[in-house]
């Protein structure tokens, strides 16, 4: 079975632009979480979606939004990009709602976003 996939692999944008990142979870997984990993830091939680509903949100501004589709894939949208948004964006999937049963989250390879 394929693991978590993310697209695109790399992306270069300029300040003020908008970006959409995509994630496909492992087949059968219903939960998708998004993380931002700034160079040299650990991942920071942005969103969790389960069964197409937002189930958690980290400390990120409203410029960040996400959604989950009926096939459980997900998109992360970032508006009005700032230089500080440059990071590796990770998607992780789990079979159930992360936390309830401590399900392992499986990570994708990430999308490297550079904002110039």
């Amino acid at each position, binding site marked *: 079975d394929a693991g978590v996939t993310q697209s695109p692999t790399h992306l270069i944008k300029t300040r003020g632009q908008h970006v959409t990142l995509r994630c496909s979870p492992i087949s059968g997984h219903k939960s998708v979480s998004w993380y931002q990993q700034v160079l040299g830091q*650990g991942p920071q939680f942005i969103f969790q979606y389960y069964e197409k509903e937002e189930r958690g949100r980290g400390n990120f501004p409203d410029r960040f939004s996400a959604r989950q589709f009926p096939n459980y894939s997900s998109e992360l949208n970032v508006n009005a990009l700032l230089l500080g948004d440059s990071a590796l964006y990770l998607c992780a999937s789990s079979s159930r709602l992360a936390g309830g049963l401590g399900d392992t989250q499986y990570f*994708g390879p990430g999308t490297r976003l550079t904002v110039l």
Partner: protein
Amino acid sequence: AQTVTQSQPEMSVQEAETVTLSCTYDTSENNYYLFWYKQPPSRQMILVIRQEAYKQQNATENRFSVNFQKAAKSFSLKISDSQLGDTAMYFCAFIANTGNQFYFGTGTSLTVIP
């Protein structure tokens, strides 16, 4: 709020030797889960080992084992017989069973020296 602290930014170990990576966490929760993830250079993060807080027995996975001290809120990772492929960034992570997000430490960069 939960916090995870990894106090060793960088470590190195000779091939075939044993190394221990430290992790401490702070939480008021009683039921939670702890993880160690490995992130090789330019590659995706993969699970190394997982520990349920309600289990007293320390988790082991082949060459990897943990020393879980619940009272001290400590969760260290021991790598035995280190291999070159163990070179990576290692992250400690926490999630409460009532929570919805993983909390990660800042990572420890491990280099295995041939």
